[in-house]
């Protein structure tokens, strides 16, 4: 008895302390945003008072998960949780309350819940259960379909609630799949698609194609370990392609040239790819990588051309404008870009050490909307300065890194996979949210884990973390 009780000292206190520090720090910052003269931080008629209640609930829940609920419970509970979450999401669609253009709240008594937050835990539990089965491999088609269905169902429902931000967070699960053996190419190609899309719009289709060709050449040669040759060929073709538009701009050439530069490049690169695709298919059928690389190149070129066409010809002005503001192409400090601009101002005004607790003018004068929820990082940046912001970043990096390291060492696949799910979920939230407040990401409304006002998110993240701590602790004990 005595020995067992002492063993709780072996819990991962790094995680627990970091978590508690973030939660309490979030609470005082919410107070700073919303307080008025002479108000008390425990006043439960105010949001900061309510948040304190949610903190108590979360700590209690965490305590129960670690001390009371056996670790084995979660694996058997995962399907019930998943099914429950799906039902709850559906119910929200029917019964939910609309706010800020999305219908994602459900009212229970005086509490408002956001089922999308809890669906992340349920999905993580179910995913871990499926993937930790003995002999599970992502090379098997039926497994791939199972995993895809598992992830896509809640994503579709959340999308119907118009909670675009929460859907984005599911990308985190892709990284878990990568850790469990999914080909890295899938994520890389996804990343390339986004890159090419952005390049096509913010620079030009030509630049997008040239960058694409450069990446293709580098990967193609590096894969065959011909590093020097690869660098040389890439550099040379980049220089040549760089001069090509200049050549077309010469009056004499322009007079007879019927096509813009990107069409020339598309036609030539397209013809070359088709030639090699046929060649690798017919004569060197075993060299699948080379063939696939050229197929990707061909698709990439077609993709750039279709993005250009779609953006210029199909989209209507206001839709184009949304994308432009999204990508920071047009300044719109009063419209869509308003939040972003105000948020950057608030953070920027903090300087090195910040204006001090309760002294942020941007924060308390209400210039930044949604300050206590999605834009809580502004208050931290303004009142605690660069030092405070960096400390928060360090705490997040500690939590995420610690979970990844512990999960990777875990004896049970279930613990490992669940750990990665938790870490990636937190990481995606942090990167998107902070990235948004400092203008690195488009404005997407998702909370900052442990810090933002909002009981659902706080409880969901805390429960997630607590389950992992429990699973990891339990795994070590055996």
């Amino acid at each position, binding site marked *: 008895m005595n020995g067992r009780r002492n063993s709780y000292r072996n819990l991962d206190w790094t995680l627990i302390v970091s978590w508690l520090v973030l939660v309490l720090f979030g609470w005082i910052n919410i107070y700073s945003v919303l307080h008025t003269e002479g108000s008390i931080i425990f006043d439960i008629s105010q949001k900061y008072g309510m948040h304190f209640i949610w903190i108590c609930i979360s700590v209690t829940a965490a305590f129960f998960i670690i001390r009371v609920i056996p670790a084995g419970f979660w694996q058997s509970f995962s399907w019930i949780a998943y099914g429950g979450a799906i039902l709850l999401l559906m119910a929200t669609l029917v019964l939910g309350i609309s706010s800020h253009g999305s219908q994602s709240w459900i009212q229970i008594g005086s509490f408002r819940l956001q089922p999308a937050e809890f669906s992340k835990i349920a999905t993580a539990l179910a995913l871990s259960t499926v993937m930790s089965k003995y002999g599970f491999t992502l090379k098997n088609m039926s497994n791939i379909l199972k995993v895809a269905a598992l992830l896509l169902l809640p994503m579709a429902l959340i999308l119907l609630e118009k909670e675009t931000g929460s859907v984005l967070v599911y990308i985190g699960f892709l990284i878990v799949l990568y850790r469990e053996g999914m080909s890295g190419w899938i994520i890389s190609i996804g990343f390339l698609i986004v890159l090419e899309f952005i390049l096509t719009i913010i620079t030009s289709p030509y630049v997008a194609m040239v960058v694409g060709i450069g990446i293709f050449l580098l990967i193609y040669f590096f894969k065959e370990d011909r590093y020097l040759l690869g660098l040389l060929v890439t550099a040379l073709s980049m220089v040549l392609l760089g001069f090509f538009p200049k050549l077309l701009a010469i009056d004499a050439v322009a007079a007879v040239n019927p096509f813009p530069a990107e069409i020339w490049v598309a036609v030539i690169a397209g013809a070359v790819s088709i030639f090699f695709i046929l060649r690798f298919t017919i004569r060197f059928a075993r060299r699948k990588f080379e063939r696939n690389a050229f197929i990707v190149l061909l698709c990439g070129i077609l993709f750039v051309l279709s993005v250009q066409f779609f953006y210029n010809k199909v989209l209507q002005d206001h839709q184009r404008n949304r994308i432009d503001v999204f990508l920071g192409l047009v300044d719109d400090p009063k419209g869509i870009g308003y939040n972003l601009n105000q948020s950057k101002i*608030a953070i920027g005004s903090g300087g090195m050490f910040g204006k001090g607790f309760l002294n942020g003018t941007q924060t308390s004068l209400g210039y930044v909307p949604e300050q206590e929820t999605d834009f809580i990082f502004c208050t931290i940046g303004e009142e605690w300065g660069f030092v405070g912001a*960096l400390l928060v970043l360090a705490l997040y990096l500690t939590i995420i890194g610690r979970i990844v390291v512990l999960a990777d060492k875990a004896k049970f696949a279930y613990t490992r996979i669940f750990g990665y799910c938790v870490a990636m979920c937190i990481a995606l939230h942090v990167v998107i949210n902070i990235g948004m407040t*400092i203008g690195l990401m488009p404005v997407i409304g998702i909370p900052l884990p442990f810090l933002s006002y909002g009981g659902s998110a706080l409880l969901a993240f805390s429960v997630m973390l607590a389950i992992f701590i429990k699973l990891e602790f339990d795994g070590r004990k055996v």
Partner: protein
Amino acid sequence: MKFYLGRRNTILLVLFVIFAIIAVRLFTIQIIDKQYRETAGNNALKYVTIYPARGRILDRYGNTIVENKITYDIMVTPRQVSEFDTLAICEIFGLEPSFVQERFASYNANDRKIGFGSMPFLKQVSSEQYNAFAEKAFLFPGFDAVARTARVYPVNAGGNLIGYVSEVDRDYIEAHPEYRSGDYAGKTGLERAYEKRLSGEKGYTVYYRDARGRIKGRYEDGALDKEAVAGGDITTTIDAGLQAYGETLMRNKVGSVVAIEPSTGEILTLISSPGIDVSQLAEINKYYKEISENPYNPMFNRTVQSAQPPGSVFKLVNGLIGLQEGVLKRDTRYPCSRGYTFGKIHVGCHGHPSPINLPQSIAMSCNAYYCYVLRSIMDNRKYDNIEEAFNKWRDYVTSFGFGHKLGSDVPYELGGNVPTVNTYNKLHGKGRWKSLSIISLSIGQGELGCTPLHLANLCATIANRGWFYTPHMIKGDGRYPLDSAYTVRNYTMVDTTYFPLIVEGMNMSVYGDGGTSHVAQVPGVNMCGKTGTAQNPHGDDHSVFICFAPRDNPKIAVAAYIENGGFGATWAAPIASLIVEKYLNGEIADGTRKDLETRVKNGYLLNKVPVKKRKK
């Protein structure tokens, strides 16, 4: 084993790189880039606008026609308002308690939008009310007053000409992004045309606030403050006395009088009747409904916006074109037997001797004569067909300024209308019309539309014997020299050598036997004039008259257009000649001229004007 380690470390590495990028970005925003810190100041600082005084408007002799008085706008910062005595506020400003309640209800509804900003509570309160408020201001935390200026009009004349100033609305701000809600801008007349010069530059005082929005004092002792720059005065070409006199003549009549100094193109008076009374200009919003419901539409500046057929004064133009085309000589004689008849066409005329030559035709305003003239122009063998002849004629007419905007500085000028070949091709079919089909153009009827400004400009052109300066209301000075558009002589396509013949006819019209303009004789002045009687489908004929004087070195050219006034000699000629007399002699001669003045002033023509039912 190596495989798994590799993936874990890849993930950790990517994560670390992303966090590093975020940290670098934070470093740039918070430490390196000063831009965000300054803009942050913008929010925490409170800018209190100082509104500049608007420039004065002077007449051609330096008399003030528009100046300023100080009024106050009462502003309120809703978040700083605590309990206050509603009744006391109502008593000071003469308000209903319900007004105050409504205001605060709307502030509460927009609380998030307003934030710690100030909203206008009451606008343009008088100095007396302000003083009463200032004494008790401590009772009303959150309220304060901002000094503004309002317009005052020492001369009771020129409402339409001066135009009004009012608060900018959303549409105006969209078109002029440099304006902010609460600013004032000239909307019509001179106030609009010279808004840039008159408005001046706003200044501001910068205060800083603490995190609760309370003002803590001047920011850096006023280092960022900007002083307001008062608007510049403008000197106009208007003769305020003549303008006021003309308006008394035009009382109870609908129409326009435009007087121009021919040698400079300067507009001396610009009267649109009925007009907006200057006493209503300063508080245009209060009277806007009343003015816009007036059936005679005082808002409408007839001098540049009412395009109507010119009537017989247009014979001068046709005569000049005939002379230039070589189809008309001084001694070309045409018969008139109470009109012109050709087939089914009949253009009537009044009884006068026949046949007559060109100057006589002007003096007696013979309709038949100009039917012959127009036919000789249109059926000229020189041209292959009527379309070619017509196009040539049209070129001549537009060279006088007709059919397009003259380019004056009177806002909302219209171009009027001169028909084109297409007009008649549509009306009659291509190749199915001839000179007879357009015969009404000869006497200034038909599809012609000219504004009174066009007619005054025609008169100035004849007075100058063949050229005009684009009419304008602004005087040039060292700082703002006159726009080059107003300093270039515009020549018509008719040689200057032909104009004296027309002038001779206009002079005969006033003094010669059978002349139609005898009523325009002014003692001591050698007058030239031409009457016009414009038929129109809406009631009595319009009475038209243009004249200039003296015959040599003319000082003033006037066009008067009196709607439904009957013959040109009945109302337009007396009014125009009285304007000339007042301008050149300074006073109206005793005897018949005084009697004429009395008759004109007492004339009431409003009952003759058809009133269109206007949509509410």
